[in-house]
């Protein structure tokens, strides 16, 4: 089963990290990713720029509306995601647990089963 692990956190905290803190965090997360990659369990990984760089297109009956900023004003923001291919929810939770431990920040991880996965845009 494929899961997306969606990482949420207070971006005003994570974007204020020093370079050293950021580097350390990325290094620790990479250490979690490495064995997963070797086992063929890791799909795409993405880290997103702050929501202030985001633009949202909202479909309406007429022309779509384009809104500056993220889709939703939330207390914690979607900062990145992992795609993993695992046997069970428990295994996905274990990965999320490891990622949470490796991450310098607090934050939340949403584990969401994937319905359709098209890595290269074609099925």
């Amino acid at each position, binding site marked *: 089963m494929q899961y997306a692990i969606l990482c949420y956190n*207070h971006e*005003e*905290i994570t*974007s*204020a*990290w020093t370079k050293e*803190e950021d580097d350390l965090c990325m290094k620790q997360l990479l250490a979690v990713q490495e064995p997963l990659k070797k086992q063929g369990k890791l799909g795409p990984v993405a880290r997103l*720029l*702050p*929501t*202030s*760089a985001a*633009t949202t297109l909202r479909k309406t009956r007429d022309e779509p509306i*384009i*809104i*500056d*900023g993220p889709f939703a*004003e939330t*207390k914690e923001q979607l900062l990145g995601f992992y795609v993993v291919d695992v046997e069970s929810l428990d295994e996905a939770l274990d990965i999320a647990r490891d990622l949470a431990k490796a991450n*310098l*920040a*607090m934050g939340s991880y949403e584990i969401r089963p994937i319905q359709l996965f098209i890595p290269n845009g074609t099925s």
Partner: protein
Amino acid sequence: MTDIAWIDKALSAARPQAVAALLRYFRDLDTAEEAFQEASLRALKNWPKNGPPRDPTAWLIFVGRNSGIDTIRKLSRQTELPPEDQISDLDDSEADMAERLDNADYRDDVLRLLFVCCHPDLPATQQIAVALRIVSGLSVKQISRAFIVSESAMEQRITRAKARIAKADVPFEAPGPVERAERFAVVAAMVYLVFNEGYSATGDEAPARAPLCEEAIRLARLLLRLFPAEPEMMGLLALMLLQHSRMPARFDADGHIVLLEEQDRTLWNRQMINEGLALIDKAMRHRAPGPYQVQAAIAALHARAARPEDTDWTGIDQLYATLEIMQPSPVITLNRSVAIAKLHGAAEALATIEPLAPKLESYFNFHGVRGAYLMQLGRKNEAREAFDKAIALANSAAEAAHIRIHLDRLMQDGGKSPEPVAAEK
């Protein structure tokens, strides 16, 4: 990261919004700051035990408000204080607060807090110092280090500035659209001043001042989150990110300035560049150009060039021409002359800047740039004179050292054609 380190980050991230909201409640800066301080102390006690709240900012405002009210009561000795655990028990009220305190409430609060720091009676450096103290929460020690003055001098300066601000009569009602736009422009200028205090530092001062650049970027991100559709704030944030992205390449091992053309572009921070470019794209969509957007677009053309010779100087020249119309200033014409030199040669660039002499006589960059053009034209004696003037007017040892490099070359072979000093902008 330990609990305490995380709480520290969370407190400083929440500070602008929390102090701003507390200022609206108490209408007094000292009370607001003390209330936030008290709330922070309780957070340090409470959060490791109970876990961090879902919305740290709302928690701090709520606790800060209660503690501020206590203080006021204590001072007026009217009522007895409620027991502390009654205040700290936030289980039910926190969710409710979080719902009510969305960005719409914060935005004018934060804007007001920054705006009061920009009191027109205060000189620019004091505006910055007081904003860094109140809004960003930097310690007096950190600020004094950045401004290279003693801690006690800075303490005095901030106290005096705060007294001035306290007397300022900034209304607490939500501002109308025109007033909001005016406040926004003043605040944006102050944020850019904070950035430039960090960016213009050279030599030994640079490491102590670099955090000012990061603080300005943080403030701009905050303002953009609160006012997501402001193209000039997108432009300002993009401008600062693009300039700051070059930080790792701007000085050599001896702390000397490395010119834009000579910088190792692989050291530029790609993530900041990408964020800056994305913000410019967003801003352009609004078709409401402004000076920050144009300056960001100039910085973007530098950022997009993988090698100096790939730079789109025609585009840069056009953007400077636009900027000259928006914000006529001899310094902008001086900077534009660098693009003119690239496109049409040093003679035309020199002809462009000669009329600026009366206005820029005491500006070090003017003589540095002029000297470089004269040198390219082989007018060595005049070039040397211009460089001498530039050294005499230099603001820092690094700037002077940079001009001396030109002079050295002039003395040795006089042949090489170094780039003008203003190329960095």
